[in-house]
C-alpha cells in the first residue's frame, strides 16, 4: 500500500532522503557518470515543479527515478550536454558544511580488482544498448529489485528479467572475446 501524498509534504526533505538513491539511478542510466550530478539536479527541479502531478500511486522515489531516467536519456541525446549547474537546494550539497559526505557512496568493493580491469568492464558495459545496460546496472543499485526496475523503466517485469539475462550474456561474451585476444 502506498500512502496518499501529504499536501504538506516537504519536498526538500524527501529530495534529500532520495538523493543517494537517485544518484545511483543517474549513474546507471547516464552514458557518462560525470553527468550524473547534473541529471539528478535537473530531475529534482522538474520533480519540484511537477509535484502536483504526483498521484501517490507509487513511492515518491520511484516517481523521481522515472524523471531521472528520462532526463538521463534526453541528456545523452541533447547536443548541449553542458547543462547549467543548478544550485537549487542549498542544504543538499554533495559536500556538507562540516565536510562530511552524504551516505550515497557504496562500500568500495573495487579495491581488490585492478583498476584497468574495472575500466575495461566499464567500457564493455557502455557498449551495451541502453535498454540492456540500464536494467543490468540498476540491479546492482543498493536494494533495487526487479519490480522496482520494472516500475521505473515502465516495462513488464518479465522484460526486465529477459533484458538483464541478455545483458549478462552479451557482457560475458564480450569479456571472454577480449580475454582471448
Amino acid at each position, binding site marked *: 500500500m502506498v500512502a496518499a501524498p501529504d499536501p504538506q509534504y516537504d519536498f526538500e526533505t524527501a529530495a534529500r532522503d532520495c538523493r543517494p538513491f537517485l544518484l545511483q539511478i543517474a549513474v546507471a542510466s547516464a552514458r557518462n557518470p560525470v553527468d*550524473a*550530478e547534473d541529471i539528478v539536479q535537473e530531475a529534482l527541479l522538474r520533480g519540484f515543479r511537477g509535484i502536483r502531478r504526483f498521484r501517490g500511486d507509487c513511492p515518491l522515489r520511484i516517481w523521481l527515478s522515472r524523471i531521472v531516467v528520462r532526463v538521463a536519456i534526453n541528456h545523452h541525446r541533447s547536443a548541449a550536454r553542458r547543462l547549467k549547474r543548478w544550485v537549487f537546494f542549498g542544504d543538499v*550539497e554533495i559536500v556538507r558544511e562540516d565536510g562530511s559526505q552524504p551516505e550515497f*557512496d557504496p562500500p*568500495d*568493493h573495487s579495491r581488490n580488482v585492478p583498476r584497468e580491469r*574495472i575500466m575495461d568492464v566499464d567500457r564493455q558495459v557502455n557498449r551495451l544498448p541502453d535498454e540492456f545496460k540500464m536494467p543490468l546496472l540498476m540491479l546492482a543499485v543498493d536494494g533495487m529489485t526487479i519490480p522496482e526496475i520494472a516500475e521505473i523503466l515502465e516495462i513488464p517485469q518479465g522484460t526486465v528479467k529477459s533484458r538483464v539475462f541478455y545483458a549478462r550474456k552479451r557482457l560475458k561474451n564480450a569479456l571472454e572475446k577480449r580475454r582471448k585476444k
Partner: protein
Amino acid sequence: MDCQWFNANLEAYFCETLGNEELLLVSEHLTTCLSCRNEVQSLRDVDPMVRQVLDYRMTKARLAASAPRRSIGFQLGLAGAGVALAAAIVFGVFLHQANEPGGSASIVPPTLQSSDSPDTKAGKGSDSTPTVRAKPVAPDQPAAVKSIAPEPIIPAGAPEFAVIDPSGYSKSLSDYRGRVLLIGIWSADRKETAQNLQRVYQALGTRRNLSVLGVSRRKQDPLPGMTFPVVFNDGSRLLEARDFEYVVVDKEGHEQLRGSLAGDSNALISKIRTKLEQLGVR
C-alpha cells in the same frame, strides 16, 4: 534433459519462468553436467563485476560533483585571475618581441654606426655605405615575429592515435582493430572540408566493418547538418594527419590511403570507395 535443451531454456531458467517439474530436472542436470554448471556460473559472475563498475562510476560521479562546487564569488575571482594571467602573458610576449635582437630598429642602427665610424674616419667610406648596410636589418623583423610563433603542441613521443568521444570515453587504434577506420580532421574554420567529410560519411558510412570518425583538434560543437561521429584529439599525433586531411587505416591498423578533404567531394568519395573495396569493405 540434455545440454541442448538446457541451453535453449537458459533464458527461461534465469527469468524464472520454468515450471516446478522443469526446475527439478534442471537442478538434476546441473549436478551432473560440468559445462552447463560452468555456463550458469559464468553468467552469475557477471553481477559482481557490474557491481564494481557501478561503484567505480559512483566514485567518478562523486569526484565530478564535489570538484566544481564553488561559490559564484570564487568563480568570478577565478575568471579575473585568468584574465590577469592572459594579460600578463600578452605583455610578456610584447616585451620579448621588443627585446629580440634585430627586432627593434632603435637598437641596431647605433651598432652599425659605431662599426662604420672608423671607415668614415679613414676617409674610405661614402655617404651611401651606412644606408646600404642598414638594409638587412629590415627583413629580420618578420623573422623575429616568426620566432615567437607557437611551437607544435604534440610532442614526438605522443601516442599515435588517441581520441575522446563526446561522452568522455577515450579510444585508441586498437579499439577499431578488425574494422577499417576512416578518420577526417575537421574544423569549424573550414566548413567545406567538414561538409565533404559529411558527404563521404553519407555515401559510405553505412558499410559494414567501416568506422568513420571526424576528429577535431580541440573540443568544438558539431556544425549544423553534421551527423558523422565526432571525437576530439587527446594529445596524440593523429596518425601524422594534418588539418583537413583524411586517413584510411586497414583492419590491422596500417595506413592505406591519405589525402586532403578539400576539393570535389564526388572525386573524393570515388577515390575512398575504390580503396575501401580493395580492402574488402562493401
